[in-house]
């Protein structure tokens, strides 16, 4: 079973040289720490920055330079700054190669719910609805089950949707799964030491698994 950094590390393997990538808040943010050497990626922050750098050194914070999580950050050689409309223009026109975001639920037809729990304080969707509606390649990083022990991979989402039919890949502490075009989760890899049966128990949606599902390999 992986910890959060393990999930981030496994997702980082999906990033290819030359990718422009948008990372959501939470586990997705950690992915930046595990991008393999020799892979050049540009991180987009939807508040208006391409080429997000690491956090600043203490004393060098700039209140005018933040990411979408409102954290102080830095730029890098080759960075660019733009306004919010242009930022979502590059998202909508699919210039961003990969979006990685968290989720509360994913359904077997690729629907995602991650912005609202009815009856609780609703904070808003931020840029998530724009990202999932337009991205050509979305990976969900999340825990396989919620705090109550219920599966987050479902036949149908129970929470209000963020987007429909848009998720293609999910990485959890237990597994890597693809969402099949015809519906259902295809088990691609198991976390080290986790059995197919265990994953099946934790997955309420339709799960397809070959006979020999490989374990994840980390360098």
């Amino acid at each position, binding site marked *: 079973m992986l910890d959060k950094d393990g999930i981030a590390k496994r997702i980082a393997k999906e990033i290819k040289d030359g990718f422009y990538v948008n990372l959501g808040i939470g586990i997705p943010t950690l992915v930046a720490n595990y991008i393999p050497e020799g892979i050049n990626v540009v991180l987009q922050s939807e508040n208006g920055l391409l080429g997000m750098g690491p956090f600043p050194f203490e004393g060098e914070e700039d209140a005018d330079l*933040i990411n979408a999580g409102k954290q102080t950050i830095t730029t890098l050689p080759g960075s660019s*700054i733009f306004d*919010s409309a242009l930022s979502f223009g590059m998202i*909508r026109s699919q210039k961003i190669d990969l979006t990685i975001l968290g989720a509360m639920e994913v359904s077997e037809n690729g629907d995602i719910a991650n912005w609202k729990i009815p009856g609780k304080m609703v904070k808003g969707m*931020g840029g998530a609805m724009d990202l999932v509606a337009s991205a050509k390649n979305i990976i969900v990083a999340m825990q396989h089950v919620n705090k109550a022990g219920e599966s987050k991979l479902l036949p149908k989402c129970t929470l209000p949707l963020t987007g429909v039919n848009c998720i293609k890949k999910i990485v959890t502490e237990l597994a890597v799964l693809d969402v099949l075009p015809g519906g259902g989760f295809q088990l691609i890899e198991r976390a080290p030491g986790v059995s197919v049966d265990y994953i099946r128990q934790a997955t309420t949606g339709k799960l397809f698994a070959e006979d020999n599902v490989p374990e994840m390999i980390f360098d």
Partner: protein
Amino acid sequence: MINKVVSGADEAISDIENGNTLMLGGFGLCGIPENCITALVKKGVKDLTCISNNAGVDDFGIGLMLQQRQVKKMISSYVGENAEFERQLLSGELEVELIPQGTLATRCMASGYGMPAIFTPAGVGTEVAEGKEVRNFNGKDYLMEYAFDADFAIVKAWKGDTAGNLIFRSTSRNFNPVMAMAGKITIAEVEELVEAGELDPDHIHTPGVFVHRIFQGAGYEKRIEQRTVRTKN
């Protein structure tokens, strides 16, 4: 050159009335019009509809206007960081319309570009789509979203000149340029106001035609919401 300079925030907002719709630039607390917010609190105008990506925090930004119960409705994409906001929302004192961030930005843009509506895939198949026209282009569904209609846009820039030209700094640009284009009256507060001719025309982000009033603000706090640093090894 037409001179757009006013004496300060109080004069700039003097004709904002109860019930007006305001756009306020900024993302979180980054690039917000601090001086004008202070002046609006002082003036005490009420029943405002505020279009702004966020609603500030309890004791800063739009949060200051919420404390004084000046806001009737917020149109935002994310409002998480404000306990007074939550209280007013749950008690029904405050109306909130949550919309996708790209939709918010593009509805501002459409207004500034003189276009009545846009089509966006954001929110298709979700509760955001309820009651909205859906159109299919090239096999994909899009929602029709209307351009905003705001009485005033209030923005914050880094530098500006007496002709109203604006230059923004770093990610404090965010919603400011598109909102500047979208107000029936646009008010710009800047950290440094210079004479027309001192800014390179090639470096202008917002042409002065969109700006009706400009002044040099004072005492910028520029509060940081999430101070994150790394340590030198």
